[in-house]
């Protein structure tokens, strides 16, 4: 038992070094760090942390093994419910989930569950790797997974373990979904995503890329081809904009576009052809994880970066760690400000953003205090690029081409929350395609539930 009040510090790159490179910011615990942190866990009888996890990782059990320095046993426990621990340990919003419920957090900081999860996964990858991973005996029954993001990969992982013949269809040229096109290298190295996908492939999961379901093939084609069940995990759709003047000016991006250029297309590396501008000054609108990712990428591309957000620090939806990292890296925050128009020059190139100051009023539907404009407080910020990070709408490609697939009011695929079953028998769905933009771990939770429900459906 370790009475240390704070988490064992995470070794990381110095802010003024890392804001000029794309290498991973957090360097990971050493064995000693991990054991020390694991000893902070009380192994309390209620283990509230487990209920805070969308995939119910057996947290106190794996942490107990870390404390005993039996890292292989810790890995077995961890991966019994979580197929992507190296990813979750890096990108989960632990403060709202497992760590948010940790008893140690009442006085002092909670146990660093995410950091320990990452350590165990990284240790296993570096010491054991895929050695011993073999193709799972196949029961010959074919299932299709649409989309290779966190929901699809989790669903595929659980179904291959159950013996199904699993094929994953990916629209882009590379597997991983938001893990490769959205989340930057410095937060989630792409080699880790590739490693997880390689592990699934070794077990027998087949990957078909460049196949856009709803365009190249329809859901009905998959059923006609002999797939007995289908999971749709296509993620979110088109980026949202504010519907203000000047949003289609040259130099206004969605965060999706800016991040995809950098992460998927590797535009920041010389040997890749996709172009990216090296802006002097960039304004990011929004304060979620995607906004922080875009801001920190722009900083690494050499820009002076300003984040504009209409509410206050308390309401910022990004993970605490991302906000802190962004602040340390020299990104400037303009809170309680909202853009009202984007101004361009005669070449339709952005030159300024006009903002208005805001104050907080009564709580709105989201439970957060709603921002209200302060009349007459308009001011402008000079800039040569604006990146809108305001969330996404839902992609309708599959709904438009699948007769009988019911949608929610917001345009997502309508499902039974417990099973992911859609209005069509044998078709399941989960992740952002159902809920709209959410988190990696929630998508994984949905993929997991759906895999269990698909197994039950196919076992009838």
């Amino acid at each position: 038992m370790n009475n240390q009040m704070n988490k064992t510090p995470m070794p990381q790159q110095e802010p003024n070094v890392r804001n000029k490179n794309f290498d991973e910011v957090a360097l990971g615990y050493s064995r000693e760090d991990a054991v020390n942190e694991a000893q902070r866990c009380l192994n309390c009888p209620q283990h509230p942390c487990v209920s805070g996890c969308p995939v119910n990782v057996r947290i106190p059990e794996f942490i107990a093994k870390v404390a005993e320095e039996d890292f292989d046993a810790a890995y077995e426990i961890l991966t019994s419910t979580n197929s992507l621990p190296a990813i979750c340990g890096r990108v989960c919003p632990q403060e709202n989930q497992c760590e948010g419920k940790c008893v140690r957090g009442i006085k002092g900081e909670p146990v660093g569950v995410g950091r320990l999860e990452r350590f165990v996964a990284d240790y296993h990858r570096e010491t054991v790797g895929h050695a011993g991973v073999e193709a799972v005996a196949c029961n010959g029954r074919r299932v299709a997974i649409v989309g290779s993001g966190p929901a699809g990969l989790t669903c595929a992982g659980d179904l291959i373990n159950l013996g199904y013949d699993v094929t994953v269809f990916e629209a882009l040229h590379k597997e991983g979904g938001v893990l490769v096109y959205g989340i930057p290298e410095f937060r989630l190295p792409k080699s880790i995503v590739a490693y997880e996908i390689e592990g699934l492939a070794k077990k027998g999961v087949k990957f078909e890329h460049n196949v856009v379901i709803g365009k190249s093939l329809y859901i009905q084609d998959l059923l006609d081809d002999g797939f007995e069940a289908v999971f749709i995990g296509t993620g979110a759709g088109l980026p949202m904009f504010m519907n203000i003047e000047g949003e289609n000016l040259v130099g206004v991006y969605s965060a999706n576009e800016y991040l995809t250029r950098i992460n998927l297309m590797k535009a920041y590396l010389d040997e890749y052809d996709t172009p990216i501008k090296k802006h002097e000054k960039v304004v990011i609108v929004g304060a979620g994880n995607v906004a922080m990712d875009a801001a920190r990428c722009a900083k690494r591309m050499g820009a002076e970066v300003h984040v504009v957000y209409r509410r206050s620090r308390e309401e910022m939806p990004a993970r605490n760690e991302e906000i802190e990292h962004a602040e340390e890296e020299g990104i400037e925050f303009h809170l309680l400000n909202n853009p009202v128009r984007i101004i361009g020059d005669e070449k339709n190139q952005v030159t300024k953003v006009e903002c208005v100051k805001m104050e907080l009023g009564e709580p709105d539907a989201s439970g957060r205090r709603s921002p209200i404009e302060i009349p007459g407080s308009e001011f402008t910020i000079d800039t040569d690029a604006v990146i809108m990070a305001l969330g996404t709408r839902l992609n309708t490609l599959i709904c438009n081409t699948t007769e009988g697939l019911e949608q929610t009011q917001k345009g997502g695929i309508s499902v039974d929350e417990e099973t992911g079953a859609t209005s069509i028998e044998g078709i399941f769905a989960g992740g952002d395609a159902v809920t709209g933009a959410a988190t990696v771990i929630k998508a994984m939770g949905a993929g997991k539930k759906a895999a269990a429900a698909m197994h039950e459906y196919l076992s009838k």
Partner: protein
Amino acid sequence: MHKIIYKKQLSDDMFWMEFEAPYVAAKAKPGQFIIFRVDEYGERVPITMADSNKEKGTITLIFQAVGRSTMLLSQLEVGEYVQDIAGPLGKPTDVEARKRVCIVGGGTGNALAYPIAAGFKAAGATVDMISGFRTSDLIVLKDEFESVANNYYLCTDDGSAGEKAFTTDKLKALIEAGNEYDEVITVGPPVMMKFVAKTTEPYGIPTIASLSALMIDGTGMCGGCRISYEGETKYVCVDGPEFDASKVDWDVLIARNAYYAEEEKEAREHICRLTGGTRHYE
């Protein structure tokens, strides 16, 4: 990987290539596009298909080697492979229920106009085709258009072949001469399409433009291809590529498409200077 099974050079920098792409060919319709990536380092480039063959499982692209990716593509030979082809993307041309249409193609746009012309013809419409080129060396698909169109009008800016006229002048002349069109469809440089829309406006003829825009995923994720359309934002990849030409804000489209012009120029020079045309593979 997609094998190249046919290649023909149509002019100095225009190429005709047929690729194995069975998924795309099975569903492809006139007016739709694909995204290709020439190799691991390549950009994702959208191109409207010139043709597709379901039985053979192939698609045809006719393209001008003007950017780095299209230049690299043009250097591949029959039997070699292109890394990725994804599609068919975008909405197909609505060819139904038109009695008579006029299609206006400019430059490379003529290649993209060809399947549209063939599609209308197959759906039973009478097709007038105006094909415009800068000069006679650049003319492509003359024989193909002559066989598919009911009337084929060839124009060059310098008069070196066909009529010395801009496509918009020819279109206006045909309308003035009493030809009645249910619809005008235009594919070509945005500036030309802008003026086609201006030409038909006084006559109230519905006019459709097939747009190309900068794009990454092409499936409705990145939002890079957005256009201003009667004050609204639309996306070329999922709402298009065809739009009512009278509602498109052409100046915004032209400016957005030119955003990486400097980088493209540099990339082209880089190809020529360093590698004599091909990529260095270390």
